[in-house]
C-alpha cells in the first residue's frame, strides 16, 4: 500500500494499464511531455514513449474522434478532456458515434474508449471550469458514466473503465484531487496523505463498475450521492446528528439500483444530492427510481439538494455550492416530515 492523492491514484491506474496492456494509449491536451494541467499523466510519456502518451491539438472533437477510430482498430485509448466544461465540441463523437457504434454495427465494431474529464467546482473556476455535466452523459444509451469520490476508488474504477469494452465517461471531481472536501471552504483541507482512503495498492486491482458503496452506514435517512458531495453529506450528518446512510454511487449509469433501494427501504427517507444544476439533473432520475421502487416504504417526500439553475458563478461560488448547511437543512426536512 502507498498513500496517494487522487491525481497519483489516477496516474498509477494509467501506469499499470500502459504496462499491462500494449493496446492502451493515453492522450489529450498537455498530457504528454508536461503531464497534464492537473499532472495526472506526469512521467508517463518518459516511461512509455511518445507514441503511447502524447499531446493533441486543442480539439475535443478531434480527441474523441481519433479515440473512436483507434478503438475501432483495436486499441484501448484513454483520452483526457482538460475540463468537463470543454467536452461539448466532442458531443457528436460521444453521443452519435462512441455510444452507438456497437449497436449500429451489430457488434461488427466496438468502442472500448475511456474519456477522462475533471468536473465540479469549488476551485474558483467560474462557469467554464466548474461544471458537472454528468446528466448529459447518463441520458445517452450506450455510455457508461463513472465518478469516484476518493483515491482508492479512482484507481480501481479507472482500471475497470479502461478494461471495459464499452465507452466510459470518467468524471473526476477536481475539488477532491488533493484531499477530501466537506464543503467548509474556510477550513484547511485534510490531505489524502493523512486519510485512510488515500491508501492505495501500487499494483493492479479493480473496483467493479455498476457497484455502489455504503460510504457511511446509518439508520435515519438515506443520502444518495457521488463524488465531492459524499464528503459534504458526511459533514452534514455529523453536524446535525442525523444518522444518515450515505450511498456513494461511484457508477452513475448503469447503476447499482439494489444498493439504493435496499437502503431507502430500510430508512424510509431519502435525500438526493449533487452539485450539478437541478432541472433535468441526474437527481431527477434518481428520484424517479426511488419513487418507482420504494414508494410504499417512504415516510417522507424525497428531498433534492443541488446547485442552482444558474451558471456556476466565480465570486459567488459558495452561495452556489450545496454546502453542509444546505444539506443539513435537507436532512432535517426529511426527518421532520411525518
Amino acid at each position, binding site marked *: 500500500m502507498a498513500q496517494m492523492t487522487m491525481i497519483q491514484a489516477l496516474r498509477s491506474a494509467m501506469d499499470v494499464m500502459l504496462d499491462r496492456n500494449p493496446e492502451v*494509449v493515453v492522450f489529450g491536451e498537455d498530457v504528454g511531455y508536461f503531464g497534464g494541467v492537473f499532472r495526472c499523466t506526469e512521467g508517463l510519456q518518459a516511461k512509455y514513449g511518445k*507514441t*503511447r502518451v502524447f499531446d*493533441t*491539438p486543442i*480539439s475535443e*472533437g*478531434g480527441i474523441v*474522434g*481519433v*479515440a*473512436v*477510430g*483507434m*478503438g*475501432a*482498430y*483495436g*486499441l484501448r485509448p484513454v483520452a483526457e478532456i482538460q475540463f468537463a466544461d470543454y467536452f461539448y*465540441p466532442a458531443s*457528436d*463523437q460521444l453521443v*452519435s*458515434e462512441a455510444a452507438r*457504434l*456497437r*449497436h*449500429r*454495427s*451489430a*457488434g*461488427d*465494431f*466496438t468502442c472500448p474508449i475511456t474519456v477522462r474529464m475533471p468536473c465540479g467546482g469549488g476551485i474558483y473556476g467560474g462557469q467554464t471550469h466548474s461544471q458537472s455535466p454528468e446528466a448529459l452523459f447518463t441520458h445517452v*444509451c*450506450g455510455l*457508461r458514466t463513472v465518478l469516484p469520490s476518493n483515491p482508492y476508488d479512482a484507481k480501481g474504477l479507472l482500471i475497470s473503465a479502461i478494461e*471495459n*469494452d*464499452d465507452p466510459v465517461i470518467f468524471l473526476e471531481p477536481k475539488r477532491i484531487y488533493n484531499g477530501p472536501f466537506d464543503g467548509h471552504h474556510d477550513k484547511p483541507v485534510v490531505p489524502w496523505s493523512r486519510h485512510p482512503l488515500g491508501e492505495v495498492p501500487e499494483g493492479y486491482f479493480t473496483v467493479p463498475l*455498476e457497484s455502489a458503496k455504503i460510504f457511511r452506514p446509518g439508520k435515519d435517512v438515506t443520502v444518495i450521492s457521488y463524488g465531492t458531495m459524499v464528503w459534504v453529506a458526511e459533514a452534514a450528518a455529523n453536524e446535525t446528528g442525523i444518522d444518515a446512510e450515505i450511498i456513494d454511487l461511484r457508477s452513475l449509469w*448503469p447503476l447499482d*439500483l439494489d444498493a439504493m433501494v435496499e437502503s431507502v427501504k430500510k430508512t424510509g427517507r431519502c435525500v438526493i444530492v449533487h452539485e450539478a444544476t437541478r432541472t433535468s439533473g441526474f437527481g431527477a432520475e434518481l428520484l424517479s427510481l426511488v419513487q418507482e421502487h420504494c414508494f410504499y416504504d417512504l415516510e417522507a417526500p424525497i428531498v433534492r439538494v443541488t446547485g442552482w439553475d444558474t451558471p456556476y458563478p466565480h465570486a459567488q461560488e459558495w452561495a452556489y455550492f450545496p454546502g453542509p448547511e444546505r444539506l443539513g437543512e435537507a436532512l432535517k426536512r426529511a426527518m421532520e416530515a411525518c
Partner: protein
Amino acid sequence: MDRRSPLRLHVPEPTGRPGQHTDFSYLHLSPAGAVRRPQLDTSVQKTGDLCYALVRVLDDDGRAKGPWNPKLSPEVLTVGLRGMIRTRVFDARMLVAQRQKKISFYMQSLGEEAIGCAHAMALDPGDMNFPTYRQQSLLLARDDAPMVEMICQLLSNERDPLKGRQLPVMYSYKKLGFFSISGNLATQFIQAVGWAMASAIKGDTRIASGWIGDGSTAEADFHTALTFAHVYRAPVILNVVNNQWAISSFQAIAGGEGSTFAARGVGCGIASLRVDGNDFLAVYAASRWAAERARRNLGPTLIEWLTYRAGAHSTSDDPTKYRPADDWERFPLGDPIARLKTHLIAIGAWSEAQHEAMQKEVEAEVIAAQKEAERFGSLADGHLFSNSTMFDDVYEDVPDHLRRQRRQLGV
C-alpha cells in the same frame, strides 16, 4: 456626409436552375495528360498548383494520356468496368425495389461509380475505408461483393447483418475494410485519421481511407481530421467527393466558390490533388499515389474527386425542384462507365457485344442475389429480427435496466 456604400451579404448561387442550363466553366478543367505527377516524397507546397488543376488521364476519345496513366492491363480494366456496372445495376434494381415498397429508403451513386471502384482496387487487403452513404462501389467493386447480405440489410429482414437497426445503405463490413456508416455527416473523417494513427502506433502496414462529401467539408470534423492527419503524419487518404450537390445545396454553399476543396489540404500542410472522378484511370492512379505515400510514412494525401451526383440525393429527394433536369448530360466529365468502355474499345480490348454480354451477366447476378435475399423476408412482410434484439449490443452485456425494459415490452 457618409460616402460609404451599404454592406452586402453574398449568398452563392449555382449558374443553373430548373429551366436554365448550368455554365460548367466554374469547374476549371485541365486537358487529359496535362498535369504533372510529382514524386511520392514531394513537399506539400509543391502540390499547391495541383489543387487548382485537374488530374485526368482519359481524353474525350478514350485515349490514355500523360504521366498519371497507371498503365493497367486490359484484364484489370475489365474487372473495374464490371465493378462499375455492378454498382449501377445494383443501384437501379434497389431503386425499383424501393418504389415497390420492398425497402424503405435508398441512396444511389449514379455517376460516381469510378471513384469507389478504382479506389477499392488501388488499396490492399486489410486497409480500412471510412465511407459515407454513397460509397457502395467500394463493396460492389469486389468479385466477392456480399450482395445477398447487402440486400438483406436494405430489406431489414431476418438475415440483415445489422439486425434491422440501421437505415438501408448504412452497411458495416469490418472484414472487407468498410467501416460502419453513420448518418451524422463527417464524423467518420476524423475516425479514419484515428484508425490510421493506431496503425502507425502499432507499427502495422495497413492504411486508412476516409470519405466525405463536398457539403460536409463545412463540418468541424473535416478540419479537425486535416489537422490531426498533418500533425501525426497519419497514414490516411482523405477523399472529398465533390459531386456538386449536398441535397439541394450547390457546392458553393459549402465553400467551393473561387477555391477548391483540394486547396484546403495544402493550407493544412497536406499534399493534395484535384482529380477527375469520372476517369477510372485517373482515380486508380491518384489512389495508388496516395496509398503509396501513406504506406511509406510520407504522410496523408487529400484528394478532391470531381464528379456529379447524377441521381437524387435519396429516394426522399426530387432534384428537378432545384437544378436543371439535363445537368448530368451536360456535365463535362461525362459518364465514368461510358468513358472506360470507350477506352477499352479504343485500345482494341473490348467490343459493344462484349459490353452488352457483361451488362446482361451482371444483371443476372444482381437479380439472383435479390431473389435469394428476398427469401428471408422484408420490412414489409414482417420477417425481421425480434423486438427483443434491440436491447442487445447497447452495451457489451445487457445491464439490469435494459433487462427490466425488455420485460416491460413483453419480449
